[in-house]
């Protein structure tokens, strides 16, 4: 066990937590937070991979690092768009739910070849 | 014990203090308590970060701490802004002491 592997496992757990939160929490804002936790887990896994790729005097593989920065900015934009939708929904009706007939994340990720 | 080891232990100690503080703060019961979380990070978290950084001689850590110091303050202000009631008379709130 070393640092990167440890944080890789931590990332796997974070993705699980986030997925659970995204599915189970009914409030949209909590779902957005759940999505962000999954996202950070994915980034952390990528960071682990970047760290493992340390070579030729670099502390980590620069390609994943650059992609991580892009990913973090994209995730922020996504959060901003989702929050804007949520606030508009609040302005319209006052009550913020994602309709009653369908929870948006039922049975989310059936692995097709599990 | 070498200097890096000492600094790392100090970082770990501060981190434990931050963790204990977090537990207290996040339990609430009032939001004012919870808002202190970012503040706790503005001091304790940065101290741990700096100790980590100097221990491993990672120079860029100081820049990270600088950014964190700036933005932890920003987040704290956002907390306070978010929590005060929009319908209350805001212009009074900072003058009435």
């Amino acid at each position, binding site marked *: 066990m070393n*640092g*990167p592997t440890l*944080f890789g*496992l931590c*990332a796997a757990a974070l*993705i*699980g*937590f986030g997925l*659970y939160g995204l*599915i*189970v929490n*009914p409030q949209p804002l*909590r779902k957005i937070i*759940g999505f962000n*936790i999954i996202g*950070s887990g994915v980034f952390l896994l990528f*960071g682990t*991979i*970047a760290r493992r*790729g*340390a*070579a030729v005097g*670099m*502390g980590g*593989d*620069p390609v994943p*690092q650059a*992609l991580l920065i892009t990913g973090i900015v994209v995730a922020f*934009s996504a959060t*901003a768009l989702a929050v*804007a939708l*949520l*606030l508009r929904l609040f302005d319209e009706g006052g009550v*913020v739910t994602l309709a009653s007939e369908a929870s948006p994340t*039922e049975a989310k990720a059936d*692995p097709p070849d599990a | 014990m070498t200097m890096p080891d000492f600094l790392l232990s100090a970082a*770990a100690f501060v*981190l*434990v203090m931050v963790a204990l503080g*977090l537990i207290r703060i*996040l339990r609430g019961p009032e*939001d004012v308590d*919870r808002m202190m*979380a*970012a503040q706790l990070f503005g001091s304790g*978290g940065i101290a*741990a970060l700096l100790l*980590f*950084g100097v221990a491993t001689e990672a120079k*860029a*850590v100081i*820049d990270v701490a600088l950014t*964190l110091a*700036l933005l932890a303050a*920003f*987040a704290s*202000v956002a907390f*306070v*802004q978010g929590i005060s009631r929009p319908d209350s008379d805001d212009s009074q709130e*900072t003058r009435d002491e």
Partner: protein
Amino acid sequence: MTLALAVDIGLALLILAMAAWTIAVRDTFASVIGFVTYGLLLTLVWVRLALPDVALTEAAMGGGLTGALLIGAAARLRRTEATVRERPGVLTRTLAAVLSATVTAALSFCVLNLPDPAPTLAPAAAAKLGSTGVGNPVTAVLLAYRSMDTLLEAIVVLIALFGVWSLAHDRFWGGCPQLRTHADSEGILAYFARILPPIGIIVGVYIFWIGADFPGGKFQGATILAAMWLLVIGAGLAYLPPISRIWLRILLVAGPLVFIVIGFAGLVTAGAVFAYPDGFAKPLILAIEIALMPTLVLALALLVAGAPQRMPPQ
């Protein structure tokens, strides 16, 4: 080494506890605070993983802007919270738990079986670093090897901004976005917002400037500047511009357009789009970054500010 590992284990446990609390806590506001704290903790992890570029981005984005965004939303949604109390049934929760546990287990297995030695592009990136003229390999990836991704990323931010603006009410189209403010020009917040931003701007520009050779760069710098701008506005010392202003629009598109123009100039001077002629790589990369700076600062701050909510005073 064992001491370092112990510290890492402690940090990982703290992160996990924070994430679990953020998900489990009932109160939404508390959850948001938990998430911001989690973002700050994550910065420590990036430092422990020796990825300072990412740590800077996380410190700026995760702790600062995302925090402000979510807190603003949670504060406005507060009153509705009591109405949404129903939680899904036991069956859904069990299925969700099983699904999440499966994903975690599968990923853990993959993590433990990652190949050793790890595949890496670091040597390839290092070999070509000289021809880009920059010293920070991450900047070389962002603005030379994979500059298309970076261009598209700036466009992603702009499209998200169009999306946010499209949620304005028709009567406010062309108007100003608004933050909830404490409009007291004498108060402590206003004092704070007068002192901090000048230093913050120096820090932001510094982080941007060193990005060519050391950890840092335009995204991190732009985020700091955006946060400082929002602070000034939040303290009631300034207002956001109306979205119909032509200068605002020109600055917003200038970054990507300059990027594209320089990219196509590479076709003439270096034989390929997004290539740089020998010896001119660094100044061109800097030119692109400088053009992207205002675009990113404005776009990131306006994303936090949300849709236009009032018409400009005549």
